[in-house]
């Protein structure tokens, strides 16, 4: 599946409006909760990977406690972000090639961004690399609660965090195999439901939402996408992962 064929749903205005400017479930509340639970020291350097327009970063910067930096792939979102928050450091970079030195970050924030990425594995490798030992990865993202529906998810032409959902076990394996210790896992599936409810109000129906181009021929595909997604029973989680040790490429510590 080439990226040129996929429709990048997170750039759609409807998605951004539904969350009140934020394109993901949980909103700023979840961001602040993650940070509060993390116990990060003041002065920590925090990277928001997939920062969009930088709304979360602004919120964090305003607390005065953290130094923040954000990267995103979408030049549209970044441009808007720079307009709204010129004081924030926002750059265009891919999650798969993080332009930061090894062990340079105290924390990485990945808010519904990992499962929307082309190369999640590379992004996770990158997060592990740039975090210092004892650093924290704060993830909230989608997971599939009925994993047997997952393979069909991967065949869909639209790319969002929902279609990239994997099971909890896989998330744990992804993190642990890179030397992370998962210190917290909380289910926030109700936030996902609410997000879906908001989408219905702004888009008309969930099936319409999945209908990317709006053309009649896409309507049937939209409907099928909706059913494929719902059969994987998507849920939402918040996890804190501490970098316990480094893992070399060949898997040895």
């Amino acid at each position: 599946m080439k990226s040129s064929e996929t429709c990048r749903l997170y750039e759609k205005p409807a998605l951004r409006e539904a969350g009140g400017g934020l394109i993901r479930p949980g909103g700023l509340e979840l961001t602040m909760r993650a940070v509060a639970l993390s116990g990060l020291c003041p002065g920590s350097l925090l990277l928001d990977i997939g920062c969009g327009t930088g709304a979360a970063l602004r919120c964090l910067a305003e607390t005065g406690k953290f130094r923040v930096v954000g990267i995103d792939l979408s030049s549209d979102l970044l441009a808007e972000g720079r307009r709204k928050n010129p004081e924030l450091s926002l750059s265009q970079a891919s999650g798969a090639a993080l332009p930061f030195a090894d062990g340079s970050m105290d924390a990485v924030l990945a808010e519904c961004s990992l499962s929307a990425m082309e190369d999640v594995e590379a992004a996770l490798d990158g997060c592990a690399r740039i975090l210092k030992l004892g650093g924290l990865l704060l993830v909230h993202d989608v997971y599939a609660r009925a994993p047997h529906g997952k393979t069909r998810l991967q065949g869909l032409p639209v790319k969002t965090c929902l279609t990239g959902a994997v099971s909890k076990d896989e998330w744990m394996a992804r993190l642990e195999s890179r030397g992370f210790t998962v210190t917290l896992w909380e289910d926030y599936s109700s936030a996902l439901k609410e997000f879906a409810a908001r989408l219905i109000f702004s888009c008309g129906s969930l099936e319409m939402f999945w209908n990317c181009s709006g053309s009649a021929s896409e309507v049937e595909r939209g409907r099928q996408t909706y059913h494929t997604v719902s059969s994987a029973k998507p849920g939402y989680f918040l996890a804190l992962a501490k970098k316990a040790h480094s893992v070399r490429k060949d898997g040895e510590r």
Partner: protein
Amino acid sequence: MNEQDAAPTETDWLCTKCELPLEMGKVNVGYLGSMFPVDLLRCRRCGQVFIPEELAMGKMVEVEKLLEDK
């Protein structure tokens, strides 16, 4: 609300108590523990809301079913 709901009747509705035409605004709607804001026509003084039939029997039903399937 999307274009379909911004019908010509928008300014036809009047709040009888306040004698004010309704205006678009953010209204909190909720069900079974979930709550979130939605753009609806409402009276800017007393807050009385207008929910059209298509919304009640359409999107709202869909959202209710979504939230009910726990």
